[in-house]
């Protein structure tokens, strides 16, 4: 297989606030969007012809990936004007695909090994995986290595083999798409008409991202794989332990303590006396003032953290400005998303461009929308809509 169609048009509603201004595939983990990891895994398997189906906020995908040259791939962009479904997205790419191709989502984290064997299979085939919570996914019924049917989000099932959304296909699928909108429905139709679809199981990394705190799981997983490299300026008296990446033009000032795995982007100004613990990702152009401690968190580009902050198990999106003494402590808590309650251990989730004055305390599980403004000494909890004002 030499070509892959990556579906990168989706918005990711349940991930709000983080997807209000960017497509789901551009969520950044360890200073790189998820889609970047997907393309790298394909390139490592010799798949260098990439068709990207883009839609929601597509300019951010264009701007980051360009022609694909940086990653050593050749990208063709196809726009899906309205995000109607995966099969609809694939149909848009009809003019750009060859006889055989892979189709896969751009917002699930995969490693090169996950698809190494699959990439050489003859179509049609589906990559499947065993998971603990199959009812969130499409469950695949398999007999002697071939697919018998795919059941989307079953109420209950004893089968824990699910569809990863990674397919090896031929152009024949285009004859079956209309009027279906999602690929599993199309495959079921193909099965009904006697086509054979094989199932190939992987035990490699395949991580889905559905809720905001999933960003932390992905971050943790990615950071375990990094190779240390120290760019920029690291002043005397900085302790660097474990695997740490520091980008160019970043300055880390005296008496800071960095315990990897940690990734710090380029152009940052950190310290003196800042403590960054595992597993933390920090974007580009981030300023962190003295006596701030960050642990197991993801900090976006252009963030400015004032002195004396404590940030645990939290996600702070790009452009957030915090004047100082912000506390986002972690604890087990119940978080409501789309009327469902989830038991999770998290700190706070802050959308982009928020401005927090001094001494704000965020309760565990607080989800703060984009561009909120919070005045000094406030406690915040629960869910704040975008552009809220807390006074």
């Amino acid at each position: 297989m030499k070509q892959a169609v990556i579906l990168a048009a989706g918005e990711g509603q349940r991930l709000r606030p983080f997807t209000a201004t960017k497509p789901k595939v551009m969520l950044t983990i360890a200073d790189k969007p998820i889609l970047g990891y997907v393309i790298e895994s394909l390139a490592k398997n010799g798949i260098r012809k990439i068709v990207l189906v883009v839609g929601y906020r597509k300019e951010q995908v264009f701007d980051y990936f360009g022609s694909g040259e940086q990653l050593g791939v050749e990208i063709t962009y196809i726009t899906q004007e309205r995000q109607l479904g995966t099969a609809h997205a694939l149909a848009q790419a009809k003019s750009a695909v060859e006889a055989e191709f892979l189709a896969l989502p751009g917002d699930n984290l995969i490693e090169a090994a996950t698809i190494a064997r699959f990439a050489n299979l003859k179509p049609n085939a589906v990559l499947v995986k065993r998971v603990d919570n199959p009812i969130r996914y499409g469950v695949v019924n398999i007999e002697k290595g071939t697919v018998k049917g795919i059941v989307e989000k079953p109420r209950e099932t004893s089968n824990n083999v699910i569809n990863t959304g990674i397919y090896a296909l031929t152009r024949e699928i285009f004859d079956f798409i209309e009027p279906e909108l999602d690929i599993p429905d199309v495959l079921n139709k193909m099965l009904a008409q006697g086509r054979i679809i094989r199932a190939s199981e992987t035990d490699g990394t395949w991580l889905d991202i559905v809720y905001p705190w999933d960003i932390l799981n992905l971050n943790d997983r990615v950071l375990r794989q990094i190779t240390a490299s120290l760019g920029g300026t690291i002043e005397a008296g900085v302790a660097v332990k474990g695997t740490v990446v520091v980008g160019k033009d970043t300055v880390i000032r005296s008496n800071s303590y960095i315990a990897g795995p940690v990734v710090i982007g380029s152009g940052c100004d950190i310290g003196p006396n800042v403590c960054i613990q595992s597993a933390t990702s920090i974007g580009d152009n981030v300023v962190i003032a003295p006596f701030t401690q960050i642990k197991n968190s993801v900090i976006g580009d252009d963030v400015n953290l004032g002195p004396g902050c404590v940030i645990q198990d939290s996600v702070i999106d790009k452009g957030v400005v915090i004047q100082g003494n912000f506390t986002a402590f972690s604890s087990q808590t119940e978080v409501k998303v789309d009327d469902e309650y989830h038991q999770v251990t998290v700190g706070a989730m802050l959308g982009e461009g928020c401005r927090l004055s001094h001494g704000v305390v965020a309760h565990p599980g607080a989800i703060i929308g984009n561009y909120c403004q919070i005045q000094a000494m406030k406690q915040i909890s629960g869910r704040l809509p975008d552009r809220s004002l807390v006074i």
Partner: protein
Amino acid sequence: MCGIVGYIGDKQAQPVLLDCLSLLEYRGYDSCGIAVSSRSIEVYKDAIRVAALKKAAPKLSGKIGIGHTRWATHGAPSQLNAHPHLDCTGRIAVVHNGIINNYQQLREQLIGEGHSFTSETDTEVIPHLIEKHYQGDIIKAVEAALAEIDGSYAIIVMVAGEPRLVAARKDSPMVIGIGDREKFIASDVPAILNFTNRVIYLEDGDIGVITADSVKVKQHQAEVTRTENKISWTIEDAQKSGYEHFMLKEIHEQPRVIRDTLAGWMSAPEPILDLEAVRDNGAEAMLMLACGTSYHAALVGKYIVQELLKIPVRAELASEFNYYGQALAGTMAIVLTQSGETADTLRAMKRLKEAGCRVVAITNVVGSTASRIADQTIYTRAGPEISVAATKSFIAQLMALYWIMLSYAKIDASRLSSLTAELRQLPSKVQEVLDNQDRIAECAKYLAGFKDVFFMGRGINYPVALEGALKLKEISYLHAEGYAAGELKHGPFALLGSKTPVVAIVAQDNTHEPIVTSIKEIKARHSPVLAVVPEGDDSVEELADSVIVVPQVEPLFSPVVNTVALQLLAYYTALQRGCPIDFPRNLAKSVTVE
């Protein structure tokens, strides 16, 4: 980034190479060159653009050749540093895209072995290494040479008298185009798409041996098959990486340009410019000169300097200054030119130097003429700008002015630190403007229905009104005029009416009240008003016909977000009117005539 090409076949190589090179100029254009081989190798190269090389080059005869267009990394753009590079014998020619990390060490070693170098480039070690290993088999020599290199490369090697080219890549792109009895090699597919749509992609570590009739590819000395692909898309699609126009691509690059530009400067231990050194005799005045969009940056610069350095500034059009302007010896002068080749600006620089002034150039092109004349040069890191309408280079110029002046600001420490922190926020703020493009496109649809448009601003946003009007007229062909808000009543009011919309830039500084008053006066003349307003300011909500909200920033930085909003407004107006956005009629990217 650089671009490379190669040709072998039954045509004369020179015109093919030049055609391909002109399509690679988006990868860099500070110098270029070609080499053509028959029995011996003839090279023509210079620090000029491909179009100029086309005119200047003598006819080189031969059906095998290589070419290169350069964006300087190691060594300034000059004739000597331009590719192709030769070995000592002049029989091996190489073009290269990439960076060789261990070139210093290889160079010293080769010099020790008696090789002589003519350029400052990292590339030149390659032909000499090949020469060193050459014992009749060019492929073995290239393999041995590459084994010594640490870095990234796409190279094409040509040997005098040999009817083949050798190509190799690692971490830099390369494709081979297949024709009947001819083959093409290039950094990317668009460069050769005028000749063939059948291509082979080389993989990292591949070495290709290309003759007019065959392509053989080896990886780790074993022959491998690389399949042929048919290309179905067009040249322009590829270079614009998904965007409909270069202008939109460049507008969207701006958050990154700001971030990259500031990162390099902010982390540097020294200020990027030694302003004291250009302040002879403690001169307490400054002169800024530029043309076109750069002149608008100079006008914004005037306000920045006055606010931060508290010294008087003159900002002048270089084209006017050349005919009457006086420069006092010892005046600090800053000139701004994206290309570094603007003829009027260059002439003004020479006059300033003659008058005994110290001149600082702010330019986007490394080694351009402006940088050679100037006493000090600041490079904006905007990357190649293709669209004739300047966007990202303007924003990068503003960043240079902000950062220089903040380094020497005579303001209290707390304001300085809050300004510096705010400056770092600009990439996100500009992204916020871009995220609002659907709303701006709606306003543009409305604007596209008129024939004449006024732009008005005040204070530091007066130049932004000029820039907004310039963008609109150059790409959408609408008649547009930028005015200082206070000046509308001195004449232009006579033109106002329901068919002349006014784009008003509302800032949250001491100009806020007079601007609101101006809007009221304009509304009294029934002109539609489109207001660009910072978030949270609802003072004109009732007055204006429509509003574009931009993020709130420190007023000193408001030109950045306001200009980006007006760039998008001009872009979508032109799109609505079906204009050829990237290449407007009668205009050229860099004006090298006076």
